[in-house]
């Protein structure tokens, strides 16, 4: 076979992989869409569930999901960013074990975090099943991944900026705030959105910490059922709940696609801003 022929063959074989991956995703979307789309309408998004979720809507679940998302991301962002800044810009050495620990924590099954959250937040701190306990637990869960992604974002900022800042006698915090963080902000934003996607898709943590109440949570210490838990409950524990589970999954899918699309678009928008 000629070199050009080998190149063409390699191109075809390699091209099969992304197509196969896309087809698998499409299969899930089509399956969920076919089962769930007929159930999705305006009232589905604005009403509370009735008959254990076989009818009514998912408004309380949307509210609970919003609660844990805001608490989780809001809690993980400041320490996550601070840890990443320290690791990328200030740590002098001896941080290898910290990075290994973060990688191990990022790989832990979410059910482990759920058990910890139930023991620590729900029982020891007395939060009970609540969106606060759920949000704080999921914050701890996404923190290791968020730190590593933000650290990678900062490390990827051209070293020339640091050298130029040092040559101008700029204090490091000033260079950090005005040059390095803005330059890394597209990737940090992507990390944030990916972390949000992980929160949206999580169920085990919330089963242990936020509970499964179908009422709308009106405060931090009230329980709530997030979308992923609602899907689980309808599919496993409610006879005849399959269609509603698919409809809820479709809403969740749209939410996750929206956030991950944001992960793809936000960096470009921020890049335009930081270049300006």
């Amino acid at each position: 076979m000629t070199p050009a022929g080998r190149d063409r063959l390699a191109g075809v074989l390699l091209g099969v992989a992304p197509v196969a991956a896309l087809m698998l995703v499409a299969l899930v979307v089509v399956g969920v869409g076919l089962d769930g789309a007929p159930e999705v309408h305006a009232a589905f998004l604005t009403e509370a569930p009735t008959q254990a979720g076989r009818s009514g809507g998912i408004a309380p679940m949307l509210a609970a999901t919003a609660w844990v998302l805001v608490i989780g991301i809001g809690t993980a962002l400041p320490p996550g960013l601070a840890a990443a800044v320290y690791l990328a810009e200030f740590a002098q050495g001896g941080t290898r074990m910290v990075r290994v620990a973060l990688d191990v924590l990022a790989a832990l099954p979410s059910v482990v975090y759920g058990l910890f959250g139930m023991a620590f937040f729900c029982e020891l701190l007395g939060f009970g099943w609540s969106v606060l306990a759920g949000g704080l637990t999921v914050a701890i869960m996404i923190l290791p991944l968020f730190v590593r992604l933000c650290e990678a974002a900062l490390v990827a900022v051209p070293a020339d900026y640091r050298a130029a800042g040092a040559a101008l006698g700029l204090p490091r915090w000033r260079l950090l705030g005005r040059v390095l963080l803005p330059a890394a902000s597209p990737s940090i934003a992507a990390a944030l959105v990916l972390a949000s996607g992980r929160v949206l898709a999580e169920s085990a943590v919330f089963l242990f910490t936020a509970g499964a109440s179908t009422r709308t949570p009106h405060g931090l210490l009230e329980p709530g059922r997030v979308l992923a838990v609602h899907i689980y409950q309808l599919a496993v524990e409610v006879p005849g709940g399959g269609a509603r589970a698919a409809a809820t999954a479709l809403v969740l899918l749209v939410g996750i696609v929206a956030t991950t699309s944001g992960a793809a678009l936000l960096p470009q928008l921020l890049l335009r801003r930081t270049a300006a």
Partner: protein
Amino acid sequence: MSAGPSAVELRAVSVRYGDHVAVDRADLVAPAGVITALVGPSGSGKSSLLFAVNRLHDLDRSVTVTGDLRLGALDLAKAPGDALRTRIGLVFQRPAPFPMSILENVTFALRAHGAPRSELPGRAEHALRRAALWDEVQDRLTRPAASLSGGQQQRLCLARALALEPEALLLDEPCSALDPRSTALIEDTLLGLRGSTTVLLVTHNLAQARRVASRCVCLWPAPGGGRVTDAGPIDRVFEAPATRELADYFRGATG
């Protein structure tokens, strides 16, 4: 504002990267207000010696600098690094404007070092004029610095360093990636600094060294680290170099 040019004097300065000696006991005098070229083959330690002057090596814990380094009467080893670098500017080989506007690139360090806000526009204009960039950017100061050409970006970095009105300016092959026109503009800027700023210019471009510098210091690579093998007025160094290797290097036979 600048206190006027100060001489840079190095005595027995060595630079080590771990166990590797890059520069071995180098002596160098860059007289006040004069352009001094630092020439020599690759690996002779020119940039290492240059970065020792403004203590940029402080950022890398694997680097050790020993010897006596002075800016005028100031012992550089004892001066606070950040304050020192406002008195000794540095322009790198590769332009690295910050991801902000053209104007902010020039005023950023001024603001960080406490220059009154009211002075910023005037000082930025002055620095951009000195770097021969004002006429090209005066109507687009708020545009991103990244929108400038490579040559303009390097002149912006020069303006950024000059805005602090340093007593000495270090340049590490500032024109190596530039076209002849941009190179000429930077050389004109350097010539305009004579008398007001001490300039230490690392360059592989020997013709450039002769065009702009009054004095020359030659470094030569050696197993125990780069050593200064000749120094003096540039015409004397180029016409009667102290070693055969330098003579061959200047003729283009080596290096």
